[in-house]
């Protein structure tokens, strides 16, 4: 194995890559000389489908973009069409949407930290993280009827209002999750010396690489850039709650992990404040089922669980969109991945890929 290197296809079907992602790595000895990333195995043509469906019928398609945090994209699509129609939604709907968005953010981060622990060989941790996610899945199912693809939003509102007593159930579930994150996860991961040995100092993604490649979200915040669209360009009711932007300074794999763990705790804080301040009222949908949207260009961006996501909607005054372009944050994280993988060891290649948190549904659309 000395002399020429081997070219290793870490192919699309592999238990370690998150979804269908293909890495072609040039390996020499135990080091990766360079790596190429190939995507497109899950391309389903969602942007073309948008030109064929009515605005309200597009929600099932939007759900499958980021399949671990689906409600974030639904809220973005609903907000885009509402901005194009200049539609006002009432306060209760905004609070409901913010609570659901934060619940989905916690669920997405739990899947991340679970599967990250699994990549380091710790199978138990994966099942524990999913066990916590089940508590929130039950709540999402009770509110909206669906676990993974809720299809809960409509243009102008949400389909069902919150049921009675759901606020207490949410608070109980959140307390359990908070206790587990602060105690069990600490012993298993962030204060466990094997975990630290595998993740500190590896996969450093400096600010220059981030700023050149358009990386946003927790990956960016792990390098010290203090930016979060919920504070810098507040949407829904984020200007009325009090929370912090979590940053770390090391920009290695451990920092990206810690940012997401602490973001779970921040989201729990946000949900508790929102539930206390939620106004009474009804969450009626204030738009017809099939509607005409005036011609023009609309761009809305929100902070998804993986970074800054945006939708650019071009309408021509008809009943269906003329062109929809989706900007997904994982697309840009994967664009920066070959630069981070240069010079790392083979075993670390998987760990670094996992730490970027790509979800192929939103990369390939």
């Amino acid at each position, binding site marked *: 194995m000395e002399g020429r290197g081997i070219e290793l296809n870490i192919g699309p079907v592999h*238990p*370690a890559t998150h979804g269908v992602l293909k890495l072609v790595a040039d390996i020499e000895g*135990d080091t990766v000389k360079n790596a190429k990333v190939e995507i497109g195995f899950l391309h389903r043509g969602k942007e073309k489908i948008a030109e064929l469906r009515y605005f309200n019928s597009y929600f099932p398609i939007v759900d499958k973009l980021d399949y671990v945090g689906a409600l974030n994209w639904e809220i973005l699509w609903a907000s885009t069409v509402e901005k194009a129609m200049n539609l006002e939604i009432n306060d209760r709907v905004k609070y409901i949407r913010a609570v659901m968005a934060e619940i989905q953010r916690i669920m997405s981060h739990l899947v991340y930290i679970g599967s990250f622990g699994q990549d380091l060989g710790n199978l138990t941790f994966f*099942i524990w993280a999913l066990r916590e996610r089940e508590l929130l899945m039950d709540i999402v199912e009770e509110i909206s009827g669906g676990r993974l693809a809720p299809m809960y939003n409509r243009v102008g509102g949400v389909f069902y209002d919150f049921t009675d007593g759901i606020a207490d159930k949410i608070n109980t579930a959140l307390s359990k999750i908070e206790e587990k994150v602060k105690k069990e996860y600490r012993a298993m991961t962030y204060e466990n010396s094997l975990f630290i040995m*595998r993740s500190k100092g590896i996969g450093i993604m400096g600010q220059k690489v981030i700023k050149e490649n358009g990386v946003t979200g927790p990956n960016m915040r792990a390098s010290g850039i203090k930016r979060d669209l919920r504070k810098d360009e507040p949407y829904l009711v984020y200007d009325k709650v009090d929370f912090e932007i979590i940053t770390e300074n090391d920009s290695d794999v451990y920092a990206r992990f810690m940012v997401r763990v602490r973001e779970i705790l921040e989201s729990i804080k946000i949900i508790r404040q929102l539930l206390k301040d939620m106004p009474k009222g009804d969450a009626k949908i204030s738009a017809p089922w099939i509607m005409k949207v005036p011609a023009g260009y609309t761009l809305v961006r929100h902070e998804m669980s993986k970074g800054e996501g945006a939708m650019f909607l071009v309408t021509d005054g008809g009943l269906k969109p003329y062109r929809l372009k989706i900007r997904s944050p994982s697309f840009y994280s994967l664009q920066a991945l070959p630069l981070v993988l240069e010079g790392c060891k083979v075993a670390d290649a998987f760990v670094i890929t996992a730490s970027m948190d790509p979800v192929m549904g939103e990369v390939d659309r």
Partner: protein
Amino acid sequence: MIFNEIYSMLAYYLPPKANLIASALATFVLILIVLIATPIILGWVDRKFSARIQSRYGPIYVGKFGLLQNFADVIKLMGKNFVTNQYVDRFSYNLIPILSSALSFLLIALLPFGAPSLTFISLPYNLLFIYILLAFSPLLIIIASWGENNKFAVLGGFRSAAQITTYELALIVTFISIGIVNGSYDIINVIGSQSLIWNIIYLPLTAVVFFIGSIAVIERAPFDLPESSQELQAGWRIEYSGLKYGLFMIGDYVKLLAVSILFVSLFLGGWSGAFLPGIIWFWIKTVVALMFLMSLRWSLGRPRIDQLLSIGWKWLLPLSVINLIIVEVMMLI
């Protein structure tokens, strides 16, 4: 020896020549039963224990408490076709499962099962022979991974051979220390000389070194990097399926049992203890050691291969040598 016990039991009923043949056959059948029962029982314990750690149930449908689950799995494995890749080297590919099972067979035959008369073969150099069997793996693994003609297998096989070679050095130094303190390389004598004080009080460092080193030599997590299913898809076993894979699994569990029995015999006094008969003490201690070893797999992650090797060279080997020196000094005093 078990052979002697069976011989003396059957001496009432059979003439000497027939007795010889009958006891030999009976011993052979007994070894086979122990060989097959070990992975079935240990496998069940492993699955249930790991399931409860992970907040789930484990096997519950096949038999009461899922006890027959591993029987069903063995029967299923035996009924599979031998699907072989056309590019493998037939000779080495088929040789290694046979050699590896022969190794496990011999390992079962040498271990004490609770009392001085309950071994299948008794040798005066028991300990060293067991060491050779445990440390023979790198050669088999390199042959297997080269014969499989697969990049992933070769990567895994070389890592595995490097890991086992590193850690068996620490292990041999440990065994030498035991030999010096107890004056013999026979496990039965080692246990006998611990009837007053257990070895772990004299040799605490050696116990730690033995524990960590033996987990690395049997390739069990957290040191199972070569077969890490997350990264290299079962490493050097990648082209094996069906019954041949089952034979490797049997070898894994037999080695796990061997290491726990060794730890108990060498450091925790074997069958010495008050109030209860020795054999019950022996099995209680072995079960505790086994559960501890099993739980390590499900609670820790995996270090990377170069971190693994550096632990072996920089920490374990020097520690065991230091312990040997301390032991020699102690003996002189």
